[in-house]
């Protein structure tokens, strides 16, 4: 190190303090430039700067009248300033012993007057200087000197702020990653728990239908209640992780509002305690049919009403629905659930919608529940652009109300003739399923319905049986060895040219999977663990011609409209380009994924994401983000496979819709 200039005693610590701010060689910043300008104005000097001194140079964060970004350390006056704790002022360098022969006095910057304030960090290190320099002899007054010290303090405060911002940013990233990890863990665990639960709930149902003595019936009912409760909890957790990961979509279909409400009422009526009145009031002006998400409305109301019934031991629970606003194309409806139950303490009202929060810490023990229900309600309401509110008085009761807007519809409900079990006659059914427990369960259930069942333990076997015998219907598990449910269905549809109804059965309940089932040619979808009534309904649906429930996605063109300024020709070109490019790229992605070619998967996923964003295909864009992320980390999981599949099907569907435009 050049010893021509003094080195501060704490040089090593001083340099470390400087490095912590990551300020060296950064871009100009208004805050610092303003401070430099202030110095120049206040002191009336042509040269001013804020600089930092590292091992071998003085680097200017901001400067006026210097014109270079750094100078070697050995030529700077500031070497002396950083030794000091206060302002260093040299009124006339020509009469100063230390500087009169300095090259920057005799030539260079022609420094005649120098005033420098050390920039001192909160822990006491002088990492740089704030300076005012002139070509003439000068003396600062008291106010000017004070101003320089104040500005120097502000510069340090600015640096501190920048560092804090960076730390916050880094911490936010860590927190986001942790949340992502937790959500995918929750989703996986829920799935793992659902599979064995399927067997427990199913066999218990079967057992309950056999001849039992009173004690046995009592035991079985307890198991049934416990099983259902466990299933509810798992479903709550799964829903929450789906909402968090953006995988939960709100459907928009016409549905009968009055029927839905009456159905919910009837469903919950059985749970009402003897001292409680349970009533449903419907506004006479309320519409019959609206467009929206029927399933999610049911979920919200079942949750709120379920709570009200749970926490009310006497008095009443009133559900009322009112039309509060009507526009040309929509209704705004208020759904209120009012009870005379235990109420919620005032200080808990604000946090009642937060996760794992309940009215009282002891609520969990007295009343049970996960503390997830209201959080799910809130998120579901918000996903539908609605609002949820609560009013409550402790020991008097609570009122929860939800306001949601629904689109109007001209859709007339067509009554599909429902087939009773007997109308179906004697069906011959083929089950493709590899899990022995599930085989046994399905066999009992199907036999109970009065149908015949043959079992194939994988897709290949299923196809063989199908070519030998006549069947009315196929029940298809999705995950099987040798040939899975999708491949088998495609073979049945494309190679065997058979139109036999196929009902998918799966323990996965991921968004997109249902669509994928319909894409590959299946006719209905039953999630596991299945309820006998749901399975029977699915069988009836597919055996009744012309009742295909087909869910279509709606493509949101608003972004493209904004880009194109509404130019129809350009829009058409972009749609054509999508149809031309994306299916090929999707195929390449699938291939690269099969070959575990991380590099290409990453590239393709990244490239296609922008195209998804333009057509506002949020779900598919999310898939690609996950795929890209996994490819970057160099490891594919079962989730990647899922996302690749969902993406391929989504693209197929989108292209089909775009082609029809």
């Amino acid at each position, binding site marked *: 190190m050049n010893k021509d200039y003094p080195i501060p005693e704490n040089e090593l610590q001083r340099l470390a303090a400087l490095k912590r701010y990551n300020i060296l*060689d950064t871009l100009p910043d208004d805050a610092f430039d303003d401070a430099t300008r202030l110095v120049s104005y206040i002191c009336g000097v042509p040269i001013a700067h804020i600089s930092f001194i590292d091992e071998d140079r003085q680097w200017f964060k901001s400067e006026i009248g210097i014109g270079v970004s750094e100078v070697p350390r050995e030529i700077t006056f500031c070497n002396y300033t950083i030794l000091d704790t206060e302002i260093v002022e040299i009124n006339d360098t020509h009469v100063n012993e230390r500087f009169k022969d300095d090259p920057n006095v005799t030539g260079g910057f022609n420094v005649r007057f120098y005033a420098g304030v050390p920039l001192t960090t909160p822990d006491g290190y002088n990492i740089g200087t704030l300076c005012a320099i002139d070509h003439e002899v000068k003396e600062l007054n008291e106010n000017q000197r004070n101003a320089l010290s104040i500005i120097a303090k502000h510069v340090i405060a600015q640096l501190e702020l920048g560092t804090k911002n960076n730390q916050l940013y880094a911490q936010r990233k860590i927190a986001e990653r942790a949340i992502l990890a937790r959500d995918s863990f929750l989703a996986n665990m829920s799935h793992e728990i659902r599979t064995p639960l399927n067997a427990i709930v199913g066999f218990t149902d079967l057992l309950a239908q056999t001849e039992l003595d009173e004690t046995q019936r009592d035991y079985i009912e307890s198991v049934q209640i416990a099983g259902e409760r466990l299933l509810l909890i798992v479903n709550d957790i799964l829903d929450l992780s789906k909402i968090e990961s953006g995988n939960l979509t709100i459907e928009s279909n016409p549905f009968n509002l009055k029927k839905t409400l009456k159905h919910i009422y009837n469903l919950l009526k059985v749970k009402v305690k003897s001292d409680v009145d349970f009533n449903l009031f419907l506004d006479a002006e309320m519409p019959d049919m609206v467009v929206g998400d029927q399933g999610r409305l049911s979920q919200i109301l079942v949750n709120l009403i379920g709570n009200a019934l749970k926490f009310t031991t006497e008095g009443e629970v009133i559900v009322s629905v009112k039309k509060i606003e009507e526009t040309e194309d929509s209704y705004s409806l208020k759904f209120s659930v009012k009870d005379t139950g235990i109420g919620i303490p005032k200080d808990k009202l604000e946090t009642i919608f937060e996760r794992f929060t309940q009215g009282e810490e002891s609520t969990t023990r007295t009343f049970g529940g996960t503390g997830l229900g209201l959080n799910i309600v809130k998120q579901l309401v918000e996903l539908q652009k609605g609002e949820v509110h609560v009013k409550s008085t402790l020991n008097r009761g609570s009122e929860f109300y939800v306001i949601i807007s629904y689109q109007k519809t001209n859709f007339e409900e067509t009554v599909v003739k429902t087939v009773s079990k007997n109308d179906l006659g004697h069906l011959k059914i083929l089950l493709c399923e590899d899990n022995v427990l599930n085989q046994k369960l399905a066999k009992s259930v199907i036999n109970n319905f009065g149908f015949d069942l043959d079992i194939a333990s994988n897709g290949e076997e299923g196809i063989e049986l199908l070519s030998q015998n006549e069947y009315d219907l196929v029940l298809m598990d999705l995950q099987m060895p040798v040939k899975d449910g999708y491949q088998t269905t495609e073979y049945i549809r494309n190679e065997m040219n058979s139109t036999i109804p196929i009902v998918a059965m799966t323990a996965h309940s991921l968004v997109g999977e249902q669509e994928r089932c319909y894409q590959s040619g299946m006719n209905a979808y039953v999630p596991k663990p299945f309820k006998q009534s749901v399975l029977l309904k699915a069988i009836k649906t597919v055996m009744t011609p012309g009742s295909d429930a087909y869910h279509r996605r709606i493509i949101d063109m608003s972004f493209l409209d904004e880009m194109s300024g509404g130019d129809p020709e350009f829009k058409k070109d972009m749609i054509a380009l999508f149809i031309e490019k994306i299916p090929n790229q999707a195929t390449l992605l699938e291939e690269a994924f099969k070959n575990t070619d991380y590099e290409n998967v990453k590239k393709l996923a990244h490239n296609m994401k922008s195209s998804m964003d333009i057509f506002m295909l949020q779900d598919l864009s999310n898939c690609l983000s996950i795929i890209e992320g996994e490819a970057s980390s160099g490891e594919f999981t079962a989730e990647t496979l899922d996302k690749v599949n969902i993406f391929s099907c989504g693209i197929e569907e989108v292209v089909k819709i775009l082609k029809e435009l």
Partner: protein
Amino acid sequence: MRIIVAEDNDILRKSLSFFLESKGFSVDQFSDGKEALDAIEKENYDLILTDINMPGVSGMEITQHVRENLKSDIPVIILTSSGVEQTELDSFDIGANEFIAKPVSPAVLLVRINKLLKTRI
């Protein structure tokens, strides 16, 4: 005002170009980083809009080349994927003026472009 757009996703590139042209800019578009760089050396652009990830030469390399070898202070906007970490800091380090995370909002893009072009004049 002349803007060069470098983006390998065809749909996004064409949309961005169409949008900027409709706002009165003259736009040259490239899907390959190397070709974009050649054009930057030959032509006189007022602003560079480039994707961070490009075949051939990346958006970062374009910026670095412009700053270090061409010694130009032309405004550079880098489009990033929100998922890519550290991008924010990196694009500042190499001298980009702005980074915008995809999906790019046309309105935001326009504001930033106008801001950069104005402060320059």
